[in-house]
């Protein structure tokens, strides 16, 4: 399975796959092939719960092809719990900024044609 397929399969189970450098301990997205800190290529897999808080987001009304039927929706950047990693994803049914204050609790819940799906907790 490719690295992207592994992310997808775990996201479908509500989990988020990361890579921890076995030399220096730095935690990465699993799509990293070399350690940002020490350059090592040796990683161990760490499966996170996929929970976190919204770091920033936008509500999209003019959408790329294939997303028109979902507008308005949010593209969100979520800070994962207990680590210094963020992950982006699609959040449905967000119409106004009042629906999603920065800091809102959220969780990865799946993966489909809208990429990684994140929902409010």
């Amino acid at each position, binding site marked *: 399975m490719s690295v992207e397929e592994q992310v997808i399969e775990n996201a479908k189970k509500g989990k988020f796959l990361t890579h921890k450098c076995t030399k220096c301990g730095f935690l990465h997205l699993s799509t990293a092939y070399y350690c940002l800190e020490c350059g090592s290529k040796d990683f161990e897999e760490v499966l996170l719960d996929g929970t976190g808080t919204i770091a*920033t987001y936008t509500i999209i009304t*003019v959408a790329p092809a*294939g997303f028109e039927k979902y507008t308005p929706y949010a593209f969100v950047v979520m800070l994962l719990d207990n680590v210094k990693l963020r992950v982006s994803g699609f959040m449905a049914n967000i119409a106004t900024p009042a629906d999603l204050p920065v800091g809102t609790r959220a969780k990865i819940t799946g993966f489909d044609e809208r*990429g990684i799906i994140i929902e409010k907790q």
Partner: protein
Amino acid sequence: MEKVCVLGAGSTKYGKLADSIADITTQASVSAIESAGIDPKEIKASYISNVFGVADKQVHIGPVLMSRLGIPDRPSLTIESACGSGSVSFREAYANIAAGFYDCLIATGVEKVTHTGTEWTTTYFAYCSDFFYEGQAGASFPGLFASMARAYLTEFDATEEDFAKVAVKNHDNGVLNPKAHMQKKITVDDVMKSAVVASPLKLYDCCPFSDGASSVILCSEKFAKEHGGDYVEVIGSGRGGSPAALQGREHLTTIPSTKIASESAYKMAGVTAKDIDFAEVHDCFTIAEVVDTEDLGFFEKGKGIQAVREDRTKLNSDISINPSGGLKSKGHPIGATGIGQVVEVYDQLTGNAGERTVKDAKVGLTHNFGATGASCAVHIFQSV
């Protein structure tokens, strides 16, 4: 290293153009050649920046241009670096002259996309993001910069009206630029009432999709002196990179590549941000100009918005930011933009900027990036 000069510069009008991509590439190149007063046969090679040539059925445009210029035997390189392509082709030409490989080169940038419509451009431009994490999840480019804007509004003392003032200022400048795409004055109210594209960004916070081409002739100092005519000297050149996706940036309101590229260019030029008289910065969205002016060192982090509020970035104020009208008003033909910025600096420093002239300007800076600043180039120029 050889000293490098810009000997001539020219652009088509930016906007919705009827002519083909090959035609507008050639038109801009011919105007640069005529501005430099050289014979095309003095050009040794070309660097052509273009992203979506496929939209107008013409990729590998370098040889097409060289054929039309009567120099089909000269090598060309077509360069893609998203919205930062133009500054990369300028840099490649700069580096080749600095290294002594050539004494006279042409760098031309072009884009022709308006005929494809908003959905096509929104969709294809999103392919310049880190697609697995961003484009695939429905992020558009307005959406990615809107995410930066939301982070800025959350972190600093700023309002959506403050962002709107950037657009108003750049439209004020663009009205004075006959080549600008959007030649009309707007008000803060116009911006605030325009349709939301990606909250908190509204239509008038966003640059337009534009067609257009820009071209410059670069040469060694020896070539420029022997040739005569107006020229400006390139005194600094820097490039930098950032994590491709916003999620990987240490701060969501800082573009690391801008800091890396500008620090490198300042060091080479032996100047600091305080020495810059005016700057053409990458204002694809109003938030971008604010972040750029901070990352370039003109203002402290979080204070760029205050400078806008206090009109300190207007034409002939503390530092004239985007005297051309910027991407916001002049327009953003993505492959041409980085070269178009150099055209503006050339016009300013050689006394050809008309009503939008920055008074007593000696040192100008260009700042152009690709995507959300995943790649960036900064150049610094000095009048001779």
